[in-house]
């Protein structure tokens, strides 16, 4: 057999696409393409799709339509974003972003292979490396004053636009998005705010002065572009990011992914100001058919009962705000929050807000090709969290938003003079 499985590039950054082609097949042969990955804890992730070779005996994922499997239709990177854990509810997150890639094995079978078989071997195999940091990117552990996190620096002297990267109630530090952005020319501080080193174990309040310390630290760095920094933030992090945009003049460009525009659950504190949060009624948690917990409706009749003081004062923001919204977010009503914030901006004559709403996308909008995760475990909770989303739509949202996010930061963080 003269099958050839050609996958290029074999080594790339995780947000770069890969072309996958098979040649030398019998005309119209039905084949299975399977992808396998083992994460750093040995958890197995797999995906597969079934294709019909052309008359010329080729399958090229750029134009071939998957007939079945983990996705249907033309999706050149479908094998990557449809990777699923063997054990339900595990989420794929790269821990060591500097020293090792994810290794993904692509296998070709010349039949429909619904399951793994000990006896049937693939006809061809290729392995690709997916890296979370580019050559020359540096990683530095940060312990300055109260600030705890990890700083990623692009190669070169700079200055580079500076960004603070915030995740949500997963806690600790999540590095993979920061390291990828650094690989794209930004200085990024993946900032921890609880459950990390000597920070509090539990998040009991949001102390904006801590985040101001982090912003000042970043702006003071010799490689960081002045006069202002950006923030990229998701979930609970996005509520904090929006608060930073409202209150901190150091923050001139903020990306809020699926966050709330009101103070939820925990008080927000900034100097003398204390904002009382909206209560989350845990009795309104719903259980999805899979057993995962759906938190989207924890606020009861929010907009009618809202205390205006709990609304984040977006009209005070001096910089630019980009809301990234997954319309099928099952964790919170992201679209509702973003729309309210946009209305608030407009009613105060502010025009520096923009919303990108993605139909079918869920809560965890991550860099492109991140495997779609419907629900996963969160520390300290006995049910998985339902994130929502439709896999193919979610993948498209990740693809599109990543480009928009980088454009947004370059546009607002790089002074016009230096763009010439």
């Amino acid at each position, binding site marked *: 057999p003269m099958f050839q499985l050609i996958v290029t590039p074999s080594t790339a950054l995780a947000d770069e696409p890969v072309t996958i082609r098979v040649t030398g097949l019998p005309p119209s042969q039905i084949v299975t393409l399977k992808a396998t990955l083992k994460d750093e804890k040995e958890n197995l992730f797999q995906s597969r799709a079934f294709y019909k070779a052309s008359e010329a005996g080729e399958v090229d994922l750029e134009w071939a339509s998957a*007939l079945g*499997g983990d996705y249907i239709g033309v999706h050149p990177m479908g094998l990557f974003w449809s990777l699923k854990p063997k054990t339900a509810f595990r989420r794929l997150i790269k821990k060591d972003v500097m020293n090792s890639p994810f290794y993904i094995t692509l296998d070709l079978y010349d039949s429909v292979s*619904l*399951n793994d078989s000990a006896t049937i071997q693939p006809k061809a195999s290729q392995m690709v490396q997916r890296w979370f940091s580019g050559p020359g990117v540096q990683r530095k552990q940060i312990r300055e004053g109260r600030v705890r996190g990890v700083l990623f620096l692009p190669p070169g002297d700079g200055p580079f636009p500076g960004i603070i990267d915030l995740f949500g109630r997963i806690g600790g530090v999540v590095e993979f998005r920061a390291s990828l952005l650094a690989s794209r020319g930004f200085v990024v501080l993946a900032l921890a705010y609880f459950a990390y080193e000597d920070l509090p174990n539990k998040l009991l309040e949001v102390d904006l002065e801590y985040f101001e310390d982090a912003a000042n630290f970043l702006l003071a760095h010799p490689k960081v572009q002045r006069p202002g920094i950006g923030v990229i933030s998701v979930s609970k992090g996005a509520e904090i990011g929006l608060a930073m945009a409202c209150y901190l003049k150091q923050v001139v460009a903020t990306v809020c992914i699926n966050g709330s525009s009101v103070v939820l659950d925990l008080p927000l504190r900034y100097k003398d100001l204390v904002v009382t949060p909206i209560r989350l009624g845990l*009795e*309104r*948690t719903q259980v999805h058919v899979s057993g995962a917990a759906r938190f989207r*409706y924890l606020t009861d009749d929010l907009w009618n009962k809202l205390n205006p003081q709990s609304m984040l004062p977006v009209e005070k923001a001096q910089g630019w705000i980009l809301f990234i919204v997954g319309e099928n977010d099952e964790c919170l009503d992201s679209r509702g929050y973003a729309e309210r914030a946009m209305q608030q901006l407009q009613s105060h004559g502010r025009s520096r807000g923009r919303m990108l709403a993605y139909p079918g996308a869920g809560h965890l909008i991550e860099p492109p090709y991140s495997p779609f995760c419907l629900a996963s475990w969160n520390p300290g909770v006995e049910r998985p969290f339902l994130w929502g989303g439709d896999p193919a739509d979610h993948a498209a949202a990740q693809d599109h938003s990543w480009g928009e996010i980088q454009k947004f930061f370059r546009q607002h963080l790089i002074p016009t003079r230096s763009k010439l």
Partner: protein
Amino acid sequence: MAQLTATPLSALVDEPVHIQVTGLTPFQVVCLQASLKDEKGNLFESQAFYKANEVGEVDLERDASVGGDYVGVHPMGLLWSLKPEKLLTRLAKRDVMNTPFQVQVKVCEPYFPIKNVVPHAPKDSLTLERWYVAPGVTRIQVKEGRLRGALFLPPGEGRFPGLIDLFGSTGGLIEFRASLLASHGFAALALAYWGYDDLPPLLEKVDLEYFEEAVEFLLRHPKVLGPGVGVISVCKGAEVGLSMAVNLKNITATVLINGPNFAIGNLHVYRGQTSLPTPTNIEFTSSNALGFAEFYRTYEQTGDVDSRYCFPIEKAEGHFLFVVGEDDKALNSKAHALQATSQLTRNGKKNWTVLSYPGAGHLIEPPYSPLCCASRIPFVSPNIHWGGEVIPHAAAQEHSWKEIQSFLKKHLILDVTSQL
């Protein structure tokens, strides 16, 4: 003092229970929980959160759940929203005669699945008995000729409308529906046809003469009314049921739940005539977001569209009731029912009704059965996604069960005058 009541405490599994709580404080939020252990020790649980009224009462027939496994007014929600501790476990009673399912119902302080938080003791609890037979129903093991199964007879003198109960892809002998129908006045024969006793371990062909023996066995029985019998059948069973109605005499009324209108996977033979199994495109198998296999597209180029494969349903003499779950992910049930009934209409026949339920999945069972959205069946390797959303599926089960019984009684219990 909080008090939990349920009436009746002991009942048939398809009978509703009225659950109430009294003695709470006004507007107190409580959690109602149900739990059940099946005969293999598998745990099933559900919960719902209610807010008491101004006199500290909760009445599940009146009040809406605000969260948990269902929301809204659903008096039987605690039962049909039970979920297995281990995903993919299906609830099915084996011993239908001697023991009920025992369901523990508790009222307690709301608590949330946070790790290391010990729940308070319940305020009150009780145990429901859910029986699969009414008092006086008898079970007769059937081992006559080739027939293997169990005949359930209602109590009392006289004759009862007879029916054959066929299940599908799990094989073996499944008794719980037949025993319930006997409790409602039918002489019901739960008939095994593979994977049971000395029957073939694997279904190789559908030998209609075996099923003809079953019809004749029933009609010979002194407690069966005649002159015809009914069939109630689901999935693979419905494929057999339709084939029986087309080929055999004395089948007066056939209930087909989520079945195909053509042969799938096996030859059908009857007195020298054969129907070949319909070609399938296994490459059209999809996978849902949790990795469970969906087979409903695999006949979309063959049986779904080409009438050459369809059973000649116009040759059947009895009446048909098609029960369709529109969210069936195992079979394209709606298309099959439409195709079959169009064929009847084209041949000038009006002997059919279709009950089509949006949001219902493949496994439409007697009322209050928990939705099993995915499980394994013998000889098929990936876990199968059956489809269905919890609340609409429960409604479909409740509605269809009544309709099925009226349909069967209407056609099997003939008015003496209508024979003149």
